[in-house]
């Protein structure tokens, strides 16, 4: 099954008939065997990008889609050998599980024995043994999506495309199937493009993540890069929670004065706002604290609790702590923020600055 290809999008934009630009011309290179996640809120252009790769949509003139350097732009989806998995499962309701999986193989007119072998193989891979004769409406959501996955890989596609495949499932099932998909993608070594609006899914599955916003790629990078070094405030906000600490004044010896105290952060000197993740702020003893504030609220999350701490700025600081101590509203609390966890997105589009005040 090592027939995976590299995908190159060249100046691929998509403008709809009404003049609405779903996607600004973008360049994107996906390596053979890589899993790229397109992540973003609805309407960001991630599904349009996927549909351009699949051949369900054509890019605006000048846009080029290449599989292994070969131009496939004029080819419709049925000629591109791509496997697709949809949010709605898209299983044929008039066929049973085996017939669904066999559909693409029948279209290719493979011999019956080979069809049977491939059905057995993919059903074993997707944990569907014994389900061949089941009707589609007798399956649970998770089973349906596994059938859809089996159907897509049975034809040995060059690329696997996922359009929010887990969005219709409940949380527990979503986690399980996500792990299965990740395992399967590694096993197959197939190039995959995965569209989602769920950041944890993106982190867990993506070799790289393209965060999309308003028809453009806001940042392209590994999950670690995206999370720890977000390129823009939009990315920082979209991936996980983030705190903003406005710098009030420059203190002595590279110190920056913020609400509630002072921070040592030589590498971010001159910045007007500092950013950090809630889990990177530590709760410390009051007399050793760099920042002091009062607990406004505590929310128990199970593995941790999130404290909202008022330090005198507009928005309370979000602090995640593994401590089992129960905090009362109004209680004084001491915080420490190590310099290395503070960051500042390089690129700050004006629209976002306005949006966030």
């Amino acid at each position: 099954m090592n027939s995976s290809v590299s995908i190159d999008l060249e100046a691929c934009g998509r403008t709809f008939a009404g003049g609405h630009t779903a996607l600004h011309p973008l360049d994107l290179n996906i390596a053979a065997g890589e899993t790229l996640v397109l992540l973003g809120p609805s309407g960001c252009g991630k599904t349009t990008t996927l549909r351009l790769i699949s051949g369900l949509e054509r890019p605006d003139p000048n846009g080029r889609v290449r599989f292994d350097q070969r131009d496939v732009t004029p080819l419709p989806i049925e000629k591109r050998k791509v496997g697709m998995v949809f949010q709605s499962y898209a299983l044929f309701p008039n066929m049973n599980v085996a017939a669904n999986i066999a559909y693409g193989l029948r279209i290719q007119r493979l011999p019956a024995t080979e069809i049977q072998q491939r059905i057995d193989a993919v059903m074993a891979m997707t944990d569907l043994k014994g389900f061949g004769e089941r009707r589609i409406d007798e399956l649970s959501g998770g089973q349906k999506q596994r059938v859809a996955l089996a159907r897509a890989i049975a034809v040995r596609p060059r690329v696997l495309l996922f359009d929010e495949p887990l969005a219709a499932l409940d949380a527990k099932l979503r986690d399980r199937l996500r792990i299965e998909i990740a395992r399967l993608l590694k096993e197959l070594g197939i190039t995959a493009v995965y569209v989602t609006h769920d950041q944890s899914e993106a982190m867990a599955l993506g070799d790289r993540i393209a965060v999309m916003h308003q028809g453009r790629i806001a940042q392209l990078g590994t999950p670690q890069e995206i999370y720890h070094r977000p390129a823009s405030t939009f990315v920082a906000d979209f991936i996980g929670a983030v705190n903003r600490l406005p710098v009030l004044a420059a203190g002595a010896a590279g110190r920056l004065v913020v609400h509630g105290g002072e921070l040592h952060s030589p590498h971010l000197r001159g910045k007007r706002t500092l950013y950090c993740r809630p889990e990177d702020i530590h709760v410390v003893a009051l007399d050793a604290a760099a920042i002091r504030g009062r607990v406004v609220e505590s929310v128990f999350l199970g593995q941790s609790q999130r404290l909202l701490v008022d330090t005198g700025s507009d928005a309370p600081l979000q602090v995640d702590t593994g401590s089992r101590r129960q905090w009362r509203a109004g209680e004084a609390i001491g915080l420490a923020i190590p310099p290395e966890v503070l960051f500042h997105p390089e690129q700050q589009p004006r629209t976002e600055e306005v949006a966030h005040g």
Partner: protein
Amino acid sequence: MSAVSQQRPQAGAASSRTPVPTAALRGLGHPALWALVPALTLFCAFWLLPFARLVLMGAEVDRGSGVSAYLAILTHRQYLTSLAATLGISLVVSLAAVGIAGLAGFFLARHRFAGKSLLVASLTFPLAFPGVVVGFLVIMLGGRQGALAQLSLWLFDERWMFAYSLLGLFVGYLYFSIPRVITTVMAACDTLDRSLEEAARSLGASTWQVARDVIVPGIAPALLSTGAICFATSMGAFGTAFTLGTRMSILPLDIYGEFTNYANFSMAAALSVVLGVITWIALSVARRLAGGGLGAPA
């Protein structure tokens, strides 16, 4: 057909699993039943009693043959041919309408273009016409002085006409069947999950394979039910046939003839009952097939 037989056990299972509605109805008690009284009264007075009388009347001795009218229908060539012709033309009309208008409806549902709503409006316009007007239109087209006759007279010095033959009847029936199918198919296509077609195409299916494997099964319930309604309408269409003054003998005209020309009430009643029963069977079979939800969205 296999899809239908697979459907059955599931439907049975569903009904055995749901004793709740019966209990709920029982819980409501008498007031709910009293609410049915007006409807039941109307039903008895204006449908059940006349129909029972009709059924009994059909069993009486037929004037022409001297046997029970039901028996006369089965034993007399004249009535059997008429029955066969009516069934035949209704069946052919339904199939043709589903074929032609099914395609058109699918196309209209899937494409946007300038003037589309105008086109749909004009295609469904015949629904507004009574059968008499449809018959009149057919005569205008294929009658003795019709457009086709004028054209052929000018070209070949011959009068071509079809209005008074089986073909005229066919055209007339098709004319008022097509709008029904188009509107039903358009509605059914709108509810069809587009990703099903996209999935089939991603697996390599060509346009006609997608149509065969996804679209037709998906809208099969709609096609069946609309086909059955076309069939029922064609079985009972009187106005068109009467206006065309067709030489064909078909059931609705026979009923009219037996009743008004020969005062043969028992035969008119028997033919009416036969017509009604056939139509009812067609509708209920279609309802059962369509109700199984052969891939239809709930």
